[in-house]
């Protein structure tokens, strides 16, 4: 899970102007890739056995790692990390600043909930209904992503951001309107467990849901890695840097951008389905613009230039948010004078401020820190030189 040779390595490769050094470099990077793959596999294995261990990190986790409460929190953090990873692919790789990513997460969560409901009266085996609902939700997510993407990509840059925001807003409005009693309106949707496998239901099975969340995260990571390493990924990256040049060499960036948009959106829907199962329901909050903005904060806090930045950002943010909320209710805060108490009791205020500071002073985010300390560079390596402060 600690692959980060991606952007940094490519930049380094591009910088290698002496061709004779190429073979050794490739061998070295191959070895590095191998070690990173082994390290990643080890990390996943460690995460997978976590529910069987009793690790207690006071102050960070609410209890030992085998307790349902902690597993629930960790699973939630991993789903948010998976979602952030899909968002980073769009924003970090293809440079598409979408403000509507929450739409697809909500489409996954609500889509699965509603399809399960819709199939519930049918007398099929429940495994078939469960799998069928997942497939139907994925297809719906795909169609939605293709429609919204095709429309929104007619404009670029900031307009694109606004258009995706508008569509997400429409989704949010529909969910809150509760058409036909399908979405539960402001109350949220509760999962109908009739056709959900027993192993995924109930507090005692949080462990299984944790493994599902871990599976979703690994799956999303692998898909993102595959897209980034593919030809389409390279074209997307090139388009981010200079769309005109891509057009000049005869490639239509629109198709590639649409592809990245669709893949990222469907991955968000996958994370949304995991969320529905984990929370045994969905709340309309996940469809709001604020939720997308939170994702943006996560990705930028973690570091846009790095894949693992999104994962670190997602986990750090979720834990921080949870801890800050706990902190806000503590006696120490309540005893402070109003001037300090009010800002400190609003986690979002602290996170928002932190975010501004990161954007202003730490362009690489958390994941950029090691690189920054090592090289002493002010700029993130993936950033173009012309963006230096004026």
């Amino acid at each position, binding site marked *: 899970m600690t692959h980060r040779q991606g952007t940094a390595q490519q930049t380094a490769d591009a910088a290698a102007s002496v061709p004779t050094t190429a073979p050794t470099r490739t061998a070295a990077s191959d070895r590095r890739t191998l070690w990173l793959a082994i390290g990643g596999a080890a990390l996943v294995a460690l995460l997978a056995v976590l529910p069987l261990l009793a690790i207690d990190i006071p102050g960070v986790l609410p209890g030992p790692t085998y307790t349902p409460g902690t597993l629930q929190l960790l699973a939630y953090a991993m789903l948010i990390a998976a979602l952030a990873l899909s968002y980073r692919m769009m924003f970090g790789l293809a440079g598409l*600043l979408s403000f509507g990513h929450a739409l697809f997460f909500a489409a996954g969560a609500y889509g699965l909930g509603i399809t399960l409901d819709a199939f519930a009266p049918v007398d099929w085996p429940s495994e078939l209904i469960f799998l069928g609902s997942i497939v139907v939700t994925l297809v719906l997510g795909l169609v939605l992503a293709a429609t919204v993407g095709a*429309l*929104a990509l*007619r*404009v*670029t*840059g*900031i*307009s694109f*951001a*606004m*258009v995706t*925001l*508008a*569509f997400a*807003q*429409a989704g949010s*409005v*529909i969910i809150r*309107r509760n058409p036909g009693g399908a979405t539960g309106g402001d109350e949220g949707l509760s999962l109908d467990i009739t056709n959900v496998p027993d192993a995924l239901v109930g507090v005692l099975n949080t462990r299984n849901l944790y493994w599902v969340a871990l599976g979703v995260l690994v799956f999303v990571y692998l898909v993102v890695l595959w897209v980034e390493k593919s030809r389409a990924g390279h074209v997307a990256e090139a388009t981010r840097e200079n769309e005109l040049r891509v057009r000049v060499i005869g490639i239509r960036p629109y198709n590639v951008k649409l592809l990245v948009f669709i893949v990222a959106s469907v991955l968000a829907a996958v994370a949304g389905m995991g969320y529905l199962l984990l929370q045994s329901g969905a709340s309309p909050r996940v469809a709001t*613009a*604020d939720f997308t*903005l*939170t994702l*943006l*904060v996560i990705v*930028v806090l973690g570091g846009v230039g790095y894949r693992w930045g999104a994962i670190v950002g997602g986990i750090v943010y979720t834990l921080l948010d949870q801890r800050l909320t706990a902190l806000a209710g503590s006696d120490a805060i309540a005893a402070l004078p109003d001037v300090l108490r*009010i*800002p400190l*009791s*609003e*986690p*979002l*205020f602290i*996170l*928002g*401020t932190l*975010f*501004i500071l990161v*954007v*202003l002073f730490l*362009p690489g985010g958390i994941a950029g820190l090691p690189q920054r300390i090592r090289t002493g560079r002010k700029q993130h390596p993936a950033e173009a030189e012309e*963006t230096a*402060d*004026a």
Partner: protein
Amino acid sequence: MSTIVLLVITGLGLGALYFLVASGLSLIYGLMGVLNFAHGSFLTISAFLGWEVGRRVSDGTWWGLALSALVGVAVGAIVAALTEYLLIRRLYERHIEQALVTVGLSLASVALFEGIWGTDPIYTEKPDWLGQTTVILGAKIPNDRFLLIACALLVLGGIVLFLRKTRYGLIIRAGVENRSMVTALGIDVRRSFTLVFAIGGAAAGLGGVLASVYYGYVSAHLGSTLLIFAFIVTVIGGLGSLTGAAIASVLVAVLQQFANFYLGGTGDLVVVIALAAVLLIRPRGLMGKVA
């Protein structure tokens, strides 16, 4: 007939509100390429402070309202200018980062407002006349709509006069057309940036006070709700075009009112469909320049 008149005038009132937010957005985007997510926060803080001051002086009178509006305009202008000076300017020419900073600001400020004024809407008093209705062609129009329309027209006129008749207006118009050329001529565009932010903030501030009249309450989320429609209006009108913003505000709001009345409360959806249609037919917006 009376229903149509009612819907049109109510739509114009709502459009006035959209315009007050969208004009600033559009000017700021046009000159600086910055999508200002904090614009809604400028509106909310102005609404809150305007309400706080107006309420203390004399609640529910014209004097109180006038004072609220004045405070709102001042607060909006100051907060916006400070934002530009302290946050936006540091990220010169880095548009995505500039937008990100305003995102952070909007998240943090909404949380702060909730901390200070609570999450529940605070209901406001307004002068008696504004709570009454006037009959036009058989339609009973709430009087506050006239106030909104009048204020939006004043702001539109004021900004147009400023842009056409003053030296700064000239620099801003030139900057919207071609900023590097203006800079090359040795003119400091940065001062106009702050000025444009202040003007946009002032319009949003007035919008905030008027929104609290229109909705009858102030809440921490007042700005974010209006901001999304203002975004849509700005895209439909064409980014950076003031006239476009004005026309689109009216179109969007009237369309919204009609859909809400005749199509069972689907106003918000119809607006998004309209946006999709505009993008399909004319991606640069109604009055937008070729990108």
